[in-house]
């Protein structure tokens, strides 16, 4: 079952401190997104004028976007597996594929926002609109940051500055990227799929 040997780090816990810090950071991110999701759930039924979220959502389109982001988690973990066995060529292919899938997702989000605004569902049209755009924009900003990190890793790899010994760098970026994916798993269900109550 192993693609690389088990590791013991020279720390008091036997765990890489940076990895522990990364997981702590991701734990704190749960609180940030929890707050934004709660605000959306509280306000999603409050539309003073114009269309509400349920009137403008295009579930088939967003489902494809969700699938794209989900598959980017697969390419990310394949990039990590490739660098851990010292396969630089496949590391670059999978990193590029992950960045490309991320960019596809962001392009979809930009398109979706454009359609929503054209149909009258904007950040200023209602409390539900404000909560929706703040929540999904924050997630989009996280994805964008992840793409920048992936492209940086790809650049380092192309310059020969990302050897097998530095596989942990790919692992940390991977942890961040997968977190962005699981946040979307939750958002897709709570924001897009769960029925919205009638406007008050």
């Amino acid at each position, binding site marked *: 079952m192993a693609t690389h040997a088990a590791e013991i780090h020279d720390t008091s*816990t036997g765990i890489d401190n940076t990895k522990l810090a990364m997981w702590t950071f991701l734990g704190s991110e749960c609180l940030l997104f929890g707050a934004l999701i709660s605000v959306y759930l509280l306000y999603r039924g409050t539309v003073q004028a114009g269309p509400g979220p349920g009137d403008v959502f295009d579930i088939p389109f967003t489902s494809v976007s969700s699938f794209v982001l989900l598959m980017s988690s697969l390419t990310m973990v394949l990039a990590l597996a490739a660098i851990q066995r010292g396969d630089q060529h496949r590391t670059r292919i999978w990193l590029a594929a992950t960045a490309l899938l991320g960019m596809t997702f962001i392009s979809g989000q930009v398109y979706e926002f454009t359609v929503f605004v054209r149909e009258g569902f904007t950040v200023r049209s209602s409390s539900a609109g404000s909560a929706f755009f703040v929540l999904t924009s924050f997630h989009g900003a996280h994805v964008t940051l992840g793409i920048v990190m992936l492209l940086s890793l790809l650049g380092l790899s192309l310059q020969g500055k990302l050897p097998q010994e530095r596989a942990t760098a790919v692992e940390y970026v991977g942890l961040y990227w997968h977190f962005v994916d699981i946040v979307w798993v939750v958002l897709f269900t709570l924001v897009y799929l769960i029925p919205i109550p009638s406007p008050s």
Partner: protein
Amino acid sequence: MDAHQVDQAHPKEKLYVKVALWLALVTGIEIFISYAGLPDWITILSLVALSLIKFLAVVGYFMHLKFDARLLRKPFVGGLLLAITIYAIVLLAFTLHDGGV
């Protein structure tokens, strides 16, 4: 050194592909349920349960939390449980107060 504190070996790539295929299948089931016209409470419960399965699969397999040292689970699960508890209380308080926002 506690044996549980040491990172275990990570799974093979075939397993990652299998997990991804299962995740795609679960996403398809979610979309089907959202269009099935079931009673709201069944729809909500099913979608939350399926979302939880996807969440755990990504965290466990792709983020390797299932295979890594147990200590790594504490800061993440701690943050997650804290978030769920705090915001569940907030949502409940707002829902009970004047029937919502």
